[in-house]
């Protein structure tokens, strides 16, 4: 079930919400938790019920291991072994479903073998719930988690607003909220803010991202024949599509959680305003950055062992980050580019160089735009072709309009409007989180919410999945 679907908005959400608060009002707190767990699992199973046993087994396993790790009486050596076992088991699960075929293909290619692919379907959200539970195990080992019953833990992992594509949350920031008695009551402020930010997210997805997607998909499908203008339109369209799609999803997740009095962490903070690549990673998919920093970069040694080691750690962390997004060399290249650029940025800073703000923004934005081409392209040849056209390596600028886009060339005018609006909204304006903080329910704002909801719902003629559902 998608957030941007009628069955979710008109049936699943109202039923889940009203029954949940009916149960809490009757002081049936455990029943309300069971209800939330069941509805979340139903939400998850909507795509494919075959995935359900995987997430259930994963939850039971991690809960048992986490409980043992949180036991202060256990001695250090056993706990270390148990942690290693727990983390490796999670990685093995992820590796089996996500990377087995990738490994087999590469092994076949390198060693000339003919090992049959497993052709496994990637269980939905496995990357997200696995990372979330690895964090839980490490936090338990560090005694940063308090013990909770299995029901509480299962709700923490499966809570439907953040289950499919994050934000990646910590046990320590969620469990106190689920246990807080105050959160068992309907909170009108939270509901209002939830509706507000959910509407922003739905609008971003349906009205903005899905329109950019038309151009991005057409462009990448015809990557080998793009002209200069088309290549730029294609790459910029994808850059904005990805941002509006994922940040739209995150806004919806934050809004939905607020309806249940749960505050999810911020995941985006105007990333395209960044003035450096380091700045970008503090603003883009912030909960993934936090995870990589806390559970990969710092354990690798962080910046504690001198320059060269720090650069190596950065590159290794981002290679892993790239691979997390998908089992493919294009993701590895994308991660490598970001890791190397972060290392170069450190060197640049250490030498005391500075750029004007506008120049720093242009360099950063264009670097990000270029690296998204690797992220999106099917293969290296497509990425090379798009980039060659963008940077005139294939020849001088040709003014043949947007002929590659075929039948949709009559929409050139709309494209320009969308691109301009996209740029305006994502770069200089306040982001949805800033709008949320300053929100006051005045009549013009209420009118905007109603108009936004109508526009988004009327645009729901075709459901489209979120890009991050694939990762």
């Amino acid at each position, binding site marked *: 079930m998608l957030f941007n679907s009628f069955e979710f908005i008109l049936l699943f959400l109202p039923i889940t919400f009203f029954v949940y608060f009916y149960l809490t009002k009757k002081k049936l707190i455990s029943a309300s938790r069971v209800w939330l767990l069941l509805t979340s699992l139903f939400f998850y199973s909507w795509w494919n019920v075959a995935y359900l046993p995987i997430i259930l087994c994963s939850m039971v396993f991690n809960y048992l291991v986490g409980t043992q790790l949180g036991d202060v009486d256990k001695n250090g050596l056993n706990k270390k072994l148990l942690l290693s076992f727990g983390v490796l088991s999670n990685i093995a699960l992820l590796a089996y479903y996500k990377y087995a075929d990738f490994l087999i293909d590469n092994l076949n290619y390198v060693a000339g073998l003919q090992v049959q692919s497993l052709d496994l379907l990637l269980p939905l959200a496995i990357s997200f719930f696995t990372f979330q539970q690895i964090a839980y195990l490490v936090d338990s080992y560090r005694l940063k988690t308090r013990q909770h019953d299995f029901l509480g833990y299962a709700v923490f992992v499966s809570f439907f607003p953040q289950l499919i594509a994050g934000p990646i949350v910590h046990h320590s920031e969620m469990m106190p909220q689920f246990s807080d008695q105050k959160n068992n009551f309907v909170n009108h402020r939270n509901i209002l803010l939830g509706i507000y930010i959910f509407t922003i997210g739905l609008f971003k997805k349906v009205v903005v991202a899905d329109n950019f997607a038309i151009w991005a998909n057409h462009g990448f499908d015809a990557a080998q024949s793009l002209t200069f203008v088309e290549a730029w339109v294609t790459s910029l369209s994808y850059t904005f599509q990805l941002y509006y799609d994922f940040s739209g999803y995150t806004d919806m997740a934050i809004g939905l959680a607020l309806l249940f009095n749960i505050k999810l962490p911020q995941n985006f903070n105007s990333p395209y305003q960044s003035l450096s690549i380091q700045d970008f990673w503090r603003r883009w998919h912030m909960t993934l950055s936090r995870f990589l920093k806390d559970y990969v970069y710092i354990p690798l040694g962080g910046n504690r062992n001198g320059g060269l080691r720090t650069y190596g750690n950065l590159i290794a962390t981002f290679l892993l980050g790239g691979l997390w997004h998908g089992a493919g060399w294009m993701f590895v290249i994308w991660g490598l580019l970001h890791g190397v650029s972060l290392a170069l940025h450190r060197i640049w800073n250490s030498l005391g160089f500075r750029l004007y703000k506008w120049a720093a923004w242009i360099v950063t934005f264009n670097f990000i735009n270029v690296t998204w081409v690797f992220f999106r392209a099917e293969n290296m040849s497509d990425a090379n072709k798009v980039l060659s056209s963008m940077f005139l390596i294939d020849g001088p600028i040709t003014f043949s309009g947007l002929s590659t886009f075929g039948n949709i060339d009559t929409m050139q005018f709309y494209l320009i409007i969308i691109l301009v609006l996209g740029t305006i909204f994502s770069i200089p304006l306040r982001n949805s989180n800033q709008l949320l903080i300053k929100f006051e329910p005045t009549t013009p704002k209420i009118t905007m919410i109603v108009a936004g909801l109508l526009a988004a719902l*009327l645009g729901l003629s075709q459901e489209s999945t979120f890009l991050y559902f694939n990762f």
Partner: protein
Amino acid sequence: MTSLSDKTAIRLILYSFVLVYICIYLVVISVDPYQLRQQGSADWAKYKYSRLYSRFQFEDLKYDDYSLIFGSSRSQKISSRLQSDNYLNFHNLYSEPGDIKNFITQLSVNQLQNIDVIYFELDIAAFREEVMKPINYNNNMVTDIVSFSLPLTFDHILSVARELYYNLLDASYYKISRDGSLLMSNDGAPTFIAENPTRRIFKANSYSRFAINDIAVINNFCIENSINIIFYTPTYSDKAIREMNWDVIHSALADLVNRGVKFKNNYFIEGISDIQTDSMYPHFSDASHLNTLAANQVFKNYVVNDDGLLIDNIDKLEISINSLKIR
């Protein structure tokens, strides 16, 4: 600006949203009760193809005798008025033999007895692969009308706005008559001879095996129920004939003939397909659509009467298709 209380704001959002949605819905359903414009495009051409309209024709068939015409846009201009007979034109079930099968198999004994003849156009290039949700003709019609336009979409609203514009200014060339056929305000006059004759040539690069199977089922159903069914092909201009993929059409028709389907081959009609004036085809509105007058004339002479070339075996099919390939 004064802030509202949170509770009031929530109520205001929900009530105004529901109210505005209902208002838009009421306008849409008032302007377009049969969902003629529901299929997702502001393009005028789409409004001809609402499957829901067949609900009304299903009702008509309970009370009077009719001949039924099933076909694509190449049959939509055939009307009771110009044929001087009782017809129901089902171009709304456009290109979906599965829909037509669904329709006739739900007819009651009385309705089956009210069918004089079924005329079934074999527009191979237009048959689609996808199967749409079948209509239940015994459902309550009001429920269908209400539910078919939900959820509202931008495209539908834009189409309805255009419909209003056409009706208020009487600006449309196109209207649908009660029998389901398409009427043009310049009915009968070949106004569109100057229209780009290369438009709307579907070359038939593949054909739907589901469609062929459904046609064979329909044919057998008619035989079992003693209903006279006449299959016929559309008529093309010479220009379209030269561009069609005859190998694909040949395969599809051979498949049908092998399953016992006989049909009248009207692809080329001398004096219609080959007449040109100033590089235009005066009997066509574009290269593969006859204009209203010619469509009714060809239907009367070559489908209803016996002038059409009947194909009932593979040899005849081979000869007739070969003659088209060399034009």
